C-alpha cells in the first residue's frame, strides 16, 4: 500500500526542481513562462504532499497477479511493436502485434483450439493489409518498410 498523494506530491516537487535547474541556461523571454509554470507546479506539489501527510490516501497499484501479468505482457507487446516497426516493417510487425495481443486476451479455454489460432491469424493479416492499402496507397502515407527489406 502506497501513500499515493504524498508520493505524487514529492514527484511533482522533484520535477519542478529538475525543471528549474534545466531552465537556468535559458534567455529571459524563453524562461519567464517556464518559471511561472514551475513555481505554480511546485506550490501545488507541496500542497499535495501536505494533503497526503494530513489525510493519507492509499493505493494498491497491482490489484491481482493475473491482471498484472496480462498488463505487463501488453506493455511488452506494444513496446516491442514500436521497436520492431522500423526493423521488420509495418506488415510483419503489425501482424505479430495483432495476433499476439488477440491471443493474450482470448479466453484461455478457447486458446487451445486450432480454429481460434487460424481465425485470429487471418483477421490480423486482413486488418494489417487493409490498413497498408488505405494508408500507403490511398492516403499516400509511407509506412515503414523495414530495414531488413531495404538491404
Amino acid at each position, binding site marked *: 500500500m502506497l501513500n499515493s498523494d504524498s508520493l505524487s506530491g514529492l514527484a511533482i516537487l522533484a520535477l519542478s526542481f529538475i*525543471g528549474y535547474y*534545466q531552465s537556468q541556461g535559458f*534567455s529571459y523571454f524563453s524562461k519567464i513562462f517556464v518559471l511561472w509554470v514551475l513555481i505554480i507546479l511546485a506550490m501545488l*506539489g507541496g500542497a499535495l504532499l501536505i494533503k497526503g501527510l494530513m489525510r493519507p490516501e492509499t493505493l494498491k497499484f497491482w490489484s491481482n497477479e493475473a491482471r498484472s501479468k496480462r498488463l505487463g505482457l*501488453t506493455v511488452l507487446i*506494444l513496446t516491442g*511493436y514500436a521497436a520492431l516497426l522500423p526493423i521488420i516493417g509495418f506488415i510483419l510487425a503489425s501482424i505479430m502485434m495483432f495476433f499476439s495481443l*488477440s*491471443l493474450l486476451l482470448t479466453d484461455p479455454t478457447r486458446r487451445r483450439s486450432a480454429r481460434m489460432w487460424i481465425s485470429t491469424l487471418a483477421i490480423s493479416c486482413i486488418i494489417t493489409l487493409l490498413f497498408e492499402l488505405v494508408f500507403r496507397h490511398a492516403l499516400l502515407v509511407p509506412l515503414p518498410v523495414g530495414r531488413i527489406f531495404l538491404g
Partner: protein
Amino acid sequence: MENLIFAVTQIFAPVNLILMVLGGVAGIIVGCLPGLTATMALALLVPFTFTMPAASGLIMLGGLYVGAMFGDAIPAILINTPGTPSAIATTFDGYPLAKKGMAQQALITNAFSSLVGGLIGTIVLLTLSPPLAELGLKFGPPEYFWMAIFGLTIIGTIASDSILKGLIAGALGLLLSTVGISPIGGDVRFTMGLVPLQAGINLMAALIGFFCIPQVLEMVETGAQKHQVIRYVSQKGLLKKTIRELIRKPVLLVRSSLLGVLIGIIPGAGGNIASLVSYNEAVRWSKNPEEFGKGTLDGIVATETANCSVVQGSLIPMLTLGIPGSPAAAVILGALLLHGIQPGRQLYTTFGGITYTFILSFFLAVVFMFFFVALGSRFFAKMISIPYHYLVPGIAFLSVVGSYALRNNLLDMALMLILGYTAYVLRKLGFNPGALVLGLIMGPFAEQGLVQSLLMGKAAGSIPKVLFGRPISLMLIGLSLLSIAWPIYSAWRSRQQHSKITTKEGEIIDAQ
C-alpha cells in the same frame, strides 16, 4: 442575386452533388481515424481539385472539411479516442454514454448538433462576415493570453474529483507545452538532445497517447467480463426520440454554435478550444452541472455544435481578409489561390458566384452528413460489440499507426507510447488526463500571449496597462473570474440546499 442563382445551379449540378458526398464520406473516414486530421486530408485533396472547375473543387473540399468534423466524434464516443483534437471534449460525456449502452443516442446527438452548428455557422458566414472578421483582428497578444487562461478555467469543471490534482495535471500540460524551441527567445528547451523534439510535442501524438493507451491498458486489466458492460442496445424509433429531445435545447444549441463561430474567427484558435470553451459554458449554465462528465447528451451538444460551427467561423477572416482562422482554412486558402482567386472584397464581387457556391454548399453538405451519420449511427454503434480480444488490439493498432502517420516519424510513435503509459499511471493516481491535455493545448497561446504582452508593455512603459487595460482582455478576465467562482458558488449553493433538506427532514422526524 445573380451570384446566388449561379450558386444554386452549381450546387445542384449532379457532378457537384456527387463530389460533395464523396468529399464528405472521405471526411468522415478521416475524422474517424485517430491521427489523420482534416487539415491533412484537405492538403491531400487539393492537388486532385486543381484539374476541376473552381466551384466543384471548393464544394468537394468543403464537404470533406464538414465530414471530418462530423466523423471525429465517432471514435470519441465509441472508444474514448478523439478522431481529431477538436473532439477531445466529446470524450467527456460521449464515452460514459456508450458505457451506459447509449452509444446510438450519443451518435445521433453528434449528428444533430453538428447539423445545427453547421447551419448556424453557415448563416453567420453568409450574413455577418465582414464585421466579425474585424472583431477577430482585434485579438492581440494580451487577448490571446487571457483567452488561454479562460480556457484553462475549465479544469475546475473536468477535474471534479480533486481540483488540486486537476490543477497539477493542467500545470504539467503547460510544462509539456514548453518542450521545443521557445517561440520568442528561440532557446531549445527540455528536448534531451533529440532534434525532432525541437518542434515540440506533437499534439495529436500526445492526444492518442493520453486517451487511447490508458484505455487499452484499462481494458486489458479489467478483462473481458467487465468490458462486456459496454454493449450496443438496439432501440426502435431512437432517431426521432433523440432529435425530439434535442430540439428542446434551443439555447444550448444556439449558444454553442455562436461560441464556435466566434472562436473560429480568431486566427489560431481551432475546434479544440471552441469545443472546450463551449463545454465549460454548458456546465456553467446547466441546471444539472453534476451530470456532466458522467454521460449527458448536453455535453455532446455543447462540444459538437461548437466544433462544427468553427468550420465556418474560421473561413470568415480567410474569405474577407485573407487571414485563415485555422490550419484547415489555410489549406482552403491555398486551393483558392491555386484557382487564381484572391481573398478580399473581390471574392464577393468578381468571384461572387464561386464564393456563394462555396458558402451555400455548406448548407447541403451538413444536411447530407447529418443523414449519413444519423442513419449510420446504428452500424457505427455496433462497433463496440466487436469481441474484446479484437477490439483492444484494434485500438492499439490504430493508436500506433495514427501517431506514426502524422509526420512519418518514429519518435512521435515512441512519445505516444511513453505519454500513454505515463497517463495510465497518472489516471491510477487520480490525475485527470483531460486537464493535462488542456494545459498542452492552451500552453503555446498562454506563453506567446504573455511574453509578447510583456514586450509590448515594456515598449509602452506599462505592463499592467497592456495586460489589464484593454476592453476585450477585461471581458475575458471577467469571464475567467466568473468561471472560477461559479463552481465554488454552485458547490456552496448545493450544500445549502442539502442542509435545508436535511433540516426539513429532521423537523418532520421530530414532529412525528
